[in-house]
């Protein structure tokens, strides 16, 4: 650390972009490395790069970050104390997500499959862990879940065996079509209700505390499986490594759902509508081989369009992600590579292996010898990310990215921080 810091220019911290009146009145400026939620807001939320993982909410020690109902994005609800933690854990700003993935892989020490030339010349493998084709033994679960229902079956076994108290998953909201919400499933019935993929983000990690409370579980001794997109798991893995006030303690297992992109709920509804389909009539969405299918309550396919025609509804921040598989998770799950009616599971860590073995009664599994399809899509996803990512992709870099480093890489691109509309600064509270 000392090497780096001694070389810093003798200058105050780079001012934010938004012309905060608090920055303009005084003779004193912040030191380098100081970041406020406002900086995150301008660099990530305002510039539409937020991927709604909820890590910032979970990381904030003063509960100053809440979730805006209309947009489902983070927003300040109490005074920001300038502790920098929201920045440090955001996979789109201060957290070098590829480094977290790398650290998890190193610690796991599991066999690697496939090779890929990493951006920094290292021989980073793209799929790390043991791949399986898996399906629920129970036929009805198999049908309800996505591609084999293995995730539902795995979690149900763990819940019923007492290894877990709950699983934080996503389900569709009752009041709004195609919009997901975080849901803490505590029984097999709950899991079945939530089975099937949701294609919008739910700020899951930021809802951990409140869903535990709603379920009447004590955060200090509950054991929870966190099931989410790779970015949610990156945030959780970082919090587990650098826990401050026990915020990650309930997490006993992480399951990543392989993902190339997620959608913004309103734009997704509008995009479905623009194809002449009523979003409320859509029971289930599915993406397979680059085609998005919408199915109604009768199982009728009502929409079948190339996924590319939904580009405008996708979260812009997803383009910067190379982590299709979810390399920071104990177990990754997806549809690619294991054929019709099966789930591809990649078991990565010791914790993942124990869970996988403990749930074996509910799963039919077979080792997956052929991972070419998985690698091809992961590889494509990584190339797309490297094109979109304004900063360098450095799996061996330091886990933190400072505000200054972020600005140096992003300023002047179409992903540079945007001044915060003062209408949103308004949410402070008096404190002293």
């Amino acid at each position, binding site marked *: *650390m*000392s090497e780096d*810091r*001694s070389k*810093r220019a*003798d200058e105050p*911290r780079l001012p934010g972009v938004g012309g*905060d*009146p*608090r*920055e*303009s*009145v*005084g*003779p*004193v*400026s*912040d*030191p*380098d*490395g*100081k970041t*406020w939620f406002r900086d995150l807001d301008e660099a990530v939320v305002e510039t*539409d790069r937020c991927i709604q993982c909820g890590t910032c909410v979970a990381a904030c*020690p*003063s*509960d*100053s970050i809440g979730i805006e109902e209309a947009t489902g994005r983070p927003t300040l609800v*109490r*005074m*920001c*104390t*300038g*502790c*920098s*933690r929201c920045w*440090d854990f955001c996979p789109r700003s201060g957290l070098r997500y590829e*480094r977290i993935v790398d*650290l998890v892989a190193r610690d796991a020490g599991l066999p690697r499959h496939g090779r890929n030339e990493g951006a920094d010349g290292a021989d980073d493998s793209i799929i790390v862990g043991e791949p399986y084709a898996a399906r629920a033994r129970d036929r009805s679960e198999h049908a309800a879940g996505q591609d084999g229902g293995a995730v539902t079956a795995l979690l149900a076994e763990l819940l019923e065996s007492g290894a877990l108290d709950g699983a934080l998953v996503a389900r569709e909201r009752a009041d709004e079509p195609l919009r997901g919400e975080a849901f803490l499933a505590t029984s097999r019935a709950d899991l079945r209700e939530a089975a099937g993929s949701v294609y919008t983000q739910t700020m899951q990690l930021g809802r951990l505390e409140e869903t535990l409370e709603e379920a009447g579980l004590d955060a200090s001794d509950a054991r929870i499986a966190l099931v989410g997109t790779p970015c949610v798991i990156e945030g959780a893995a970082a919090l587990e490594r*650098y*826990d*401050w006030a026990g915020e990650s303690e309930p997490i006993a297992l992480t399951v990543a759902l392989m993902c190339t992109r997620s959608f913004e709920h309103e*734009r997704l509804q*509008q995009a479905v509508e*623009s194809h002449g389909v009523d979003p409320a009539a859509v029971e289930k969405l599915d993406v397979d081989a680059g085609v998005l299918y919408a199915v109604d309550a009768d199982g009728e396919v009502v929409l079948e369009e190339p996924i590319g025609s939904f580009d*405008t509804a996708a979260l812009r921040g997803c383009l910067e992600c190379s982590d299709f598989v979810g390399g920071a998770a104990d177990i990754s799950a997806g549809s690619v590579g294991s054929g019709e009616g099966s789930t591809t599971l990649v078991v990565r860590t010791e914790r993942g292996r124990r869970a996988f073995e403990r749930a074996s009664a509910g799963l039919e599994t077979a080792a997956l010898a052929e991972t070419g399809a998985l690698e091809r899509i992961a590889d494509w996803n990584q190339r797309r990310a490297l094109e979109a990512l304004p900063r360098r992709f450095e799996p061996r870099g*330091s*886990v*933190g990215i400072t505000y200054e480093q972020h600005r140096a890489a992003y300023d002047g691109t179409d992903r540079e921080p945007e001044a915060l*509309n*003062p*209408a949103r*600064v*308004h*949410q*402070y*509270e*008096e*404190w*002293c």
Partner: protein
Amino acid sequence: MGLSAPVVVSPEWLEARLESVTPVDVRPERAYADLGHVPGAVNVPAERFREPGRVAAGTLPDWETFSGLLERAGIGPDDALVAYDDEGGPLAARLLLTAATFGHRGPLYLLDGGLDGWRASYPLSSDPPALEPTSYEVEPPADSPLVGREAVEAAVDTDTVIVDTRTRAEFEASHVPSAVGLDWEALLDEEGWLKPRADLEHLLESRGLVPDRRVILYCNTARRLSHTFVVLAHLGFDDLAYYEGSLTDWVRARAPAWDPLELAGQVRAHADDGIEGLVDACGDDVLSRLKLVGLYHQKQPGYFMLRTKVPGGILTSEQARVIGRVASEFACAPERYGASRQNPIFGDAYLDLTTRQDVQMHWIRLGDVPEIWDRYEAVGLTTLQACGNSVRNVVSCPAAGLDPEETLDVRPQVETISERFLGDPVYGNLPRKLKVSVTGCHENCARAQINDLAFTPAVDGDRRGFAVHVGGGLSDGPRLASDLGVFVEPEQVPAVVAATAEVFKTYGSYLDTAVNRLRYLVEELGVERFREELERAVPFSFDPAGEAVTTSYRGDHVGVHDQADGRHYVGLAVPVGRLAGREFATLADLADAYGAGELRLTPNQNALLPHVGAADLEPLLAEPLLERYSPTPGPFTRGIVTCTGHEFCSYGVIETKNRAVGWARSLDAWAERCGLDEREVIRLHLSGCSASCAQPQLGDVGLRGEIYRDDHRTTAAVDVGLGGDLGAGRFADWIAGRVPAEAAPEGIGRLVLAYEAERLADERFSEWVDRVPNDRLRGLLEGYGDAPESSTAEVR
């Protein structure tokens, strides 16, 4: 032209005129770009021109923002605009109303049915129109439709119709007196089209709304009222106005719920029902309102911090004894939080002296508050308005009336200001807190530059009075107060405080609590304008500035000092301001035994025992309590100041009191080993977060809590600032961020040693800091680069 009938136009109307008018799409950039828009429409996103963040201008954007937006969208001042959104029209209407308020000359139209209405009959386009930037210059209309709170107050119960455009439920919950309710959506049919004219006129008449009456509209955030405004203009109403502050502002400025005496009564009435009972009876927000009576809900649910207000820091020994006993009896931690083992150093039943000369205690239960208040009232103590958006405890020189050199004894001013505002609901609910300081000595003991309003001594011929300073403060936007350049007589002081509160109420916003401290208002209005406003609000004219007599800055009052009357006052260092309740009661006993029954508190979280005769000095100094709270402490113990920190404060990022007491102790021992104990004081200020409650900007070394993380670990950390010196009008400069806390004492030691080794004769720490490059300071702090020889002495 602006908004004159017809205003609401149909898609057919627009389609026929696409060549001659400019459609304006107010949806977010991405919706406009990705989802298609009316052919030829330009994009002016509503989120860019709605700005409730301004301090003085309410929710309108500033002129540069608005004109810049229009210029970039190629809109000229004479263009005919047809605005639309996809939310029923209020955002589009908001654009039109904003343009009309700024004086747009061309006609302004609202597209009926919005984007959905258009799409039902006509295609969308994805092509952005070719834009030619314009120069948008207009004159604001002579008769602005924008009115403030005072105009609404004047309109209550007159012929003017005040219209509440919120939902019926909202209206029923609360509204401005004499207002009529008219839910803006009632003007639209189920599919979002404007209802037929006859239906509308019928509906409006039912609310007493006819075109020849003056109408003032309000809602909550000036969105919904815009739509109603546009529709009324469409129907031929031409005397229309709107109140931007809207109900949020009105409620905060008026409501009896924010009356401190009323609140104190509610606490007494419901004290035995517990917090749930109080919340049931007084509403969810009662916990935040309790600040007005000195109660903060602490981090541990069900327990409160109680702040006792001590004007000028002056207590009788009787009052001090009551405070000490209350702390012993009531500030006790419950068993589940460890009872008397709750804090490893201080146990429980202790109290904290603060930087505003207040006393704070923790673990107070609601049920005990009436008993505490009874005991307080019996000896003339109060907790009312100790916190909250009110005139806070008035800070003054703790040696007022004792100091042989002072120009004025300010005790009467401190008392009148305190009494003037106590319990007064008109000033009990300001836009934000108002911090006042009064100094009569020459050493700026009450820290004028960091208060919202400060009086420092001045002379004008043989008149003695004050200079007035406004707009100082710390926190995350530190600002040194500005000298207004006037001279006021001592008896004029209360009127100046009241006038400042008035100006604050008139111009300050109740909406944006983050940036509505007085300093932002001073910054926005400018010092000249602020002085003019203030002068208008006082019943006299200001005299030009006298001769300022402040000569220096005195950091503290520790030690034995001479009084003007030949007796002595003894300043005691209370490390981090924390002492046991019973110790505080003992101090009161010492004041009776050796002094004249008086005890004072200083803005350094220390205590001062005045009126000690020469013969009593020696026995007083031999008292065992003075070993712990010494008039001759080590330099670090003498200068340490901290906030409450993580122990009780939900914002505190790191623990402060225990940490700082430990640091001061080990640094003092280290200083002795290095032969540095001749130094009087080294001022270390540690705040648990960036809210500046420990005034880190004033310290030789200012610290605020952070969290450090590298690849291997995460740990408590501090931002480090150096060279705070109010005598030089200088705040500490932040030189390093996120230094792991465990490394801080040693780094501070290296800095102090380097200063001792390198300083020129009489060079102050702040001057040395100014002269040494930040890189080197940072190197010393963090342990790299060249350090003086003796720095090998370890701080343990």
